[in-house]
């Protein structure tokens, strides 16, 4: 267990500033996931933590000790690589025990600790195999076993599940999470898959262009995204985004899109100056089919029944919108429906900067 502090960390590759200025605190035993699109600097950050990349500026501290100038082997960290990076000429047991062997531990101790880790990961029957004789999921487990055996202060995971098929990924997600519950070791985990981030993390760090967009628990980020970027990145299917201009009298009661379509803001409207360019966001599951003349008209292009839910994919005015409705609905593709939204579930972002606009519902006039 350990804390990690990143203070004003910078990373420059030649003339390219990969990470301009980043600070982050990770608590004892926390499971933190860095998530963002490729090239956002999340892997660079992880590699700097591991000591595989040098730090251009700022400080990285593990358990209060600044480790900027320490070699990876002096940092007491373990890392699981995207490619697993198993030594192909060594057996599973040798792979897992390699760090202990380099550390000069006795054969008996190595065997014992490898056995222990192998049992946790259900690898005990595969210890004599070579990596080439293992399936993707087994290799993944060996890579984790190699980390567990060392009992390090921090686990680093670099997109560990991206080479697995979908089913195995779901299974390994649960395994990693239960492993964390059991070991309580601090974990920093990098992924570009928001589902992994949402399902596994204690806290998510959403990164974009080398900077942190938002840090928080998965549900905090889901419910109150601080920017349009975070809102669009988390959640599947993604949040619907409807750009337009606020309009109405005595507050904003409608959103006017560039083609003239007007979307009434549900409820009584929000307190915001009319004429402001905004993007209104609403998650697919917060949309519902409206009765009568309420809501706004949408054209449904595709209906996707998933069994438990039905996805309606269509357009409001010129903008694509997805609606997720529990159960089954009798809507045919090509039909026109009216969609309504829960006023509390609306998000507003500045049209230009994408920053969240905090809104208050208008108090209904007497």
């Amino acid at each position: 267990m350990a804390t990690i502090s990143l203070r004003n960390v910078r990373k420059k590759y030649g003339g390219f500033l990969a990470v301009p200025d980043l600070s982050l605190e990770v608590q004892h035993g926390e499971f933190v996931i860095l998530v963002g699109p490729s090239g956002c600097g999340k892997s660079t950050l992880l590699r700097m933590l591991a000591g595989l990349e040098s730090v251009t500026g700022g400080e990285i501290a593990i358990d209060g000790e600044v480790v900027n100038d320490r070699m990876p082997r002096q940092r007491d960290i373990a890392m699981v690589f995207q490619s697993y990076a198993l030594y192909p000429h060594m057996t599973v047991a040798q792979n897992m025990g390699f760090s202990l062997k380099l550390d000069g531990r006795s054969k008996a101790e190595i065997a014992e600790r490898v056995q222990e880790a192998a049992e946790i990961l259900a690898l005990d029957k595969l210890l004599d195999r070579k990596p080439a004789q293992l399936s993707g999921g087994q290799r993944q487990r060996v890579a984790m076993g190699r980390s567990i055996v060392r009992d390090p202060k921090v686990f680093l995971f670099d997109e560990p599940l991206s080479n697995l098929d979908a089913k195995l990924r779901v299974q390994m997600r649960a395994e990693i999470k239960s492993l964390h519950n059991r070991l309580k070791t601090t974990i920093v985990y990098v992924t570009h898959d928001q589902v992994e981030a949402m399902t596994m993390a204690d806290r998510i760090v959403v990164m974009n262009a080398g900077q942190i967009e938002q840090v928080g628990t998965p549900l905090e980020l889901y419910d109150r995204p601080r920017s349009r970027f975070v809102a669009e990145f988390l959640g599947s299917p993604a949040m619907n985004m409807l750009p337009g201009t606020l309009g109405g009298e005595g507050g904003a009661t409608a959103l006017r899109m560039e083609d003239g379509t007007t979307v009434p803001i549900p409820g009584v409207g929000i307190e915001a100056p009319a004429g402001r360019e905004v993007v209104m966001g609403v998650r697919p599951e917060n949309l519902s089919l409206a009765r009568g003349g309420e809501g706004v008209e949408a054209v449904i292009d595709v209906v996707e029944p998933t069994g438990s839910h039905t996805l309606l994919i269509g357009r409001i005015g010129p903008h694509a919108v997805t609606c997720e409705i529990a159960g089954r609905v009798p809507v045919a593709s090509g039909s026109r429906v009216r969609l309504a939204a829960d006023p509390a579930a609306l998000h507003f972002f500045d049209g230009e900067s994408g920053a969240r606009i905090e809104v208050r519902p208008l108090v209904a006039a007497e």
Partner: protein
Amino acid sequence: MERQKRLFCYLMVAPAVIFTFVLGLLPMITSLGWSFLEYDLIRVQQTGTPFVGLENYKEVLSDGRFVRSITNTFLMTGLVIAFAISLGLVLAHVMHSNYRGRAIVRVLICAPWFVPPVVAAAIWMWLLNTDRSPINALLMDMGLIDSNIRFLTDSSTWGPFSVPLLSVTAVRAWNGLPFIVIFILAGLQSIPRDLYEAADVDGGNLWHKFRYVTLPLLKPVLGVLIMLLLITGIGHFEINYIMTGGGPQDLTNVMAVYSYLQAFNFFRFDLASAAGGVILVLTGIICALYIRGQLKNRDDR
């Protein structure tokens, strides 16, 4: 259609097959045939070329000079392999790592390759020649030696070793080095970088990374390399012949040079062919081992 395609294929490989047959296989078979005949160029008009069975083999194998040349062949080949591969590993790392001026270093390391063995032998003969050896002059100026080292003519020995043997070995290693370096470099480049990063995280230092990652993963490449060097080393001729002609006192005599001298100095084509036959058998054994190893490797995968 199918026939035309096949015809085209045969046409394309024909030149290679004809060359191999006329310049490789045919002389080999002919000389193998001669090795069972009496074929003394000086007496051939009186005696003809009667069949003598294994007599020629008995004669060369009981010739002390030939036995000596077998030892020398294996000794020199072994030394060349050991020396060139150790140095090749170092130089391949030098070529593999990233730094300014790497291109120049790469060209320099590859330079001996641009020199044909015959020319290399001539250059080194001049460099090592006792009377006006620049290397001797340099060593003298540096105060490392008091008298000239007779690199190619000193006939004192320590066991099977002698100064000329080591000199010729060094030149052979130097000439073969670029090939070895390129071979190893290709092997190094095929090792994934993240294995080294994993070793970094696992607590490995430079030596550990070499010992536990580089070396085991280069093993297949080194195996092929050693086999190739063995095969070419056993039949090696030109550098030994040009630099010393096998001398002094047969100290650098190898099987191929022995065979050549039998044929073209003493006109005993039968004995030369028998010596060639011995080389063929030894090379054949190594080839068989090599091919077996290759097949086994493929099965392992």
